[in-house]
């Protein structure tokens, strides 16, 4: 087999694996669900056009040339999408490195490894780009329908962004390996992904709060001072914005730049990819030492379970990065709280839905990890405890963790507005309990490392958990502004949770 044939064969193999993994995620691993998955996906895609229309429908008529403020807003939006892609790409690359999978087979084959890993790098880039295209399509559709086919160029911009994000993610991850070693890279890369994903929005919000006392990031983007400091209209910084609006020259340059960047990364790093993957796999074998030695602790059986769960949560790299991201999202409202501490402000009300939503989301993740993500189910099942005691101990861990994270914020809020603090505390509890209950009703035995796939086990549970968090957040906000509307919203959300319970699998 010639080198070119071998490469195309390996590329087909990679694409087939990627397709099957994606298909399994969509169908929850059941082939019989294929039709339902396709219909669901099409319905979801169609549904996404509604918020897309609401968000960017009004920009469809924009024409070149644009003023600086419009260029800043469009460029910032593109940059925001790019940071999210970069965040996802870093997460994907880290996963590829740490999953041993077919590494032994590839390394033991007589094929040229640099070539094979070039294909693997390209496959990562294609995957990241395909995901970006999937999520951006409704937005671009809205612009094409409202403003004409010139907006089709935006697809090209998304491709360029996806390829460049993947290239930078690979370079960053391999450099991290070289700088801090495989033991720390997984955690640092996940934290980096979280910070990059949330950082840009948060930075804009923080700037808006500090300058204008509002959470709206557009305030800072459309401000006169921003326009004054921005580059000139013909600067290369505006290429992405111009390319999005149909400037073919800018589009071709962007695509060329992205391809050159990816090609350079493949040329520089494909040789090191193998070494990095081997180091990552070898890391799993060396193990990490726990520095401190302490005596066994006593207490009840439930205490032993709670201690174990806390230890595992504390050592979970995914959880640390996710919690960090949740906490990062809490920075702007906390800042707003601090700025409005001495005065009564309507902006203060915005804090409540943000923290209620964050509590629900975090509780859902924690509940899955503690209840479903049990790595030694046989051990716990053969222990002399009633199953109800085990579940109770695990739920307690979730609620204690939520309380530890959100109590300080609610405490600070109590100084500014005791009533709002009370409403927020109540909504946090209800939101966390609802998310935990949904995870409990739909629990399936899984390994903690399968956390990424938790959404595929039950679509109903995933949507119910999201809608419950959003519902309780909205109810709390409305309760502060329009109490009657808040009550109605709360009843609707409670009804939604009850319906979810009704549809949950029956258990002995």
């Amino acid at each position, binding site marked *: 087999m010639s080198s070119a044939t071998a490469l195309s064969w390996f590329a087909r193999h990679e694409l087939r694996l990627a397709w099957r993994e994606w298909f399994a995620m969509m169908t929850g691993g059941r082939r019989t669900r294929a039709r339902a998955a396709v219909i669901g996906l099409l319905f979801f895609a169609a549904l996404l056009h509604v918020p897309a229309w609401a968000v960017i429908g009004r920009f469809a008529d924009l024409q070149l040339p644009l003023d600086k403020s419009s260029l800043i807003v469009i460029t910032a939006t593109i940059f925001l999408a790019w940071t999210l892609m970069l965040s996802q790409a870093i997460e994907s690359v880290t996963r590829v490195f740490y999953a041993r999978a077919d590494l032994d087979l590839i390394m033991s084959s007589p094929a040229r490894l640099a070539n094979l890993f070039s294909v693997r790098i390209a496959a990562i880039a294609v995957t990241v780009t395909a995901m970006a295209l999937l999520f951006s399509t409704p937005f671009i559709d809205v612009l094409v329908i409202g403003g004409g086919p010139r907006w089709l160029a935006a697809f090209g911009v998304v491709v360029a962004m996806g390829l460049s994000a993947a290239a930078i993610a690979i370079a960053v991850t391999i450099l991290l390996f070289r700088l801090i070693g495989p033991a720390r890279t997984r955690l640092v890369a996940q934290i980096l992904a979280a910070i990059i994903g949330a950082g840009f929005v948060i930075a804009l919000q923080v700037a808006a709060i500090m300058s204008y006392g509002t959470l709206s990031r557009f305030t800072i983007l459309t401000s006169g001072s921003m326009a004054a400091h921005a580059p000139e209209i013909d600067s290369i910084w505006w290429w992405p914005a111009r390319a999005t609006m149909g400037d073919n020259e800018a589009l071709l340059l962007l695509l060329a730049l992205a391809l050159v960047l990816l090609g350079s990364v493949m040329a520089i790093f494909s040789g090191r990819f193998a070494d990095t993957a081997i180091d990552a796999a070898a*890391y*799993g*074998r*060396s*193990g*990490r*030492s*726990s*520095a401190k*030695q302490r*005596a*066994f*602790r*006593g*207490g*009840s*059986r439930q*205490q*032993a*379970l709670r*201690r*174990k769960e806390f*230890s*595992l949560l504390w*050592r*979970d790299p995914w959880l640390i990065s996710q919690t960090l991201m949740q906490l990062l999202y809490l920075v702007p409202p906390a800042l707003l709280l601090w700025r409005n501490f001495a005065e009564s402000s309507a902006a203060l009300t915005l804090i409540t839905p943000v923290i209620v939503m964050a509590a629900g989301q975090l509780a859902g993740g924690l509940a899955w990890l503690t209840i479903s993500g049990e*790595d*030694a*189910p*046989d*051990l*716990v*099942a*053969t*222990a*002399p*405890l*009633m199953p109800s005691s085990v579940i109770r101990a695990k739920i307690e861990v979730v609620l204690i963790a939520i309380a530890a994270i959100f109590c300080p914020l609610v405490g600070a809020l109590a100084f500014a507005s005791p009533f709002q603090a009370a409403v927020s505390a109540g909504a946090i509890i209800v939101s966390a309990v609802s998310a935990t209950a949904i995870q409990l009703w739909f629990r399936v035995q899984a390994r*903690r490392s399968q956390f990424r796939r938790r959404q595929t086990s039950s679509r109903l549970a995933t949507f119910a958990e999201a809608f419950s968090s959003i519902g309780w957040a909205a109810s709390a906000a409305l309760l502060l502004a329009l109490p009657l509307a808040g009550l109605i919203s709360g009843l609707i959300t409670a009804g939604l949770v009850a319906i979810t319970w009704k549809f949950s699998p029956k258990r*002995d």
Partner: protein
Amino acid sequence: MRFTAPKHLQVKVAGDAKPDGMAVMKPDNSALEVRGLTKRFDRLAVDSLDLTIHAGEFYALVGPNGAGKTTTLRMVAGLLRPDAGAVSIFGVDALQNPVAAKQVMAWVSDEPMIYDKLTPLEYLEFVAGLWGIAPSISEPVAEELLSSLGLEPHRHERCEGFSKGMRQKVALAGALVHDPRLIILDEPLTGLDAVSARHVKGLLGERVRAGCTVIMTTHILEVAERMADRIGVIASGRLVAEGTLTELRQQNGHADTSLEDLFIALVTLQEAA
């Protein structure tokens, strides 16, 4: 290195231990009694199985793939609910009073399930806590178990980097740290190297000599032949033969037949029936 359970953990049971390790059976003192145990998945996995295992006995359950060995033991351990039948552990109805039954029992599966992010010592501390063992008792036992299984240098390392054999040893230590009276093992030697396998066999032998009852499934017939007091052959969810090696030979009419030949003859006979 041989492991001997500390005196305060050694279980006093009726069967006296012989110097050669063979316990004297007392038929009226059963560690496990299974009556009419039945489980159906797509097909009948366990078919009205009756089984009696005496206290202090080392019992090996052998059978071809899919014969119902693991399903039977999982039902005994309380991991699977039977469709019909009764399970009694040291006189305790395990279906009616599972907590009391589990208190004296330990389960080790062929796929060691431990926590990657805990160290072996932390794992043993957790298991001892689950069984309600006081730290003053469990801690020295844990240290001794890790030492006897050759895991002492790794006791402060997280298990995520351990090989399958090391993980199996940690799981086994977890099963022994609360000093069970009945140990149920499903293919415990899978993935262990020769030295580790010898360690584990020695450790189980010591436990049996100390009065503990061990039930083990295995595909390694030589292990059953050498270690077990009695052997049960299971096929198609039914117990097709049971007894000491001598008794099995007598039943089959060949005095010098190996267990492997006996096993193949019995299973072939059952499949033909």
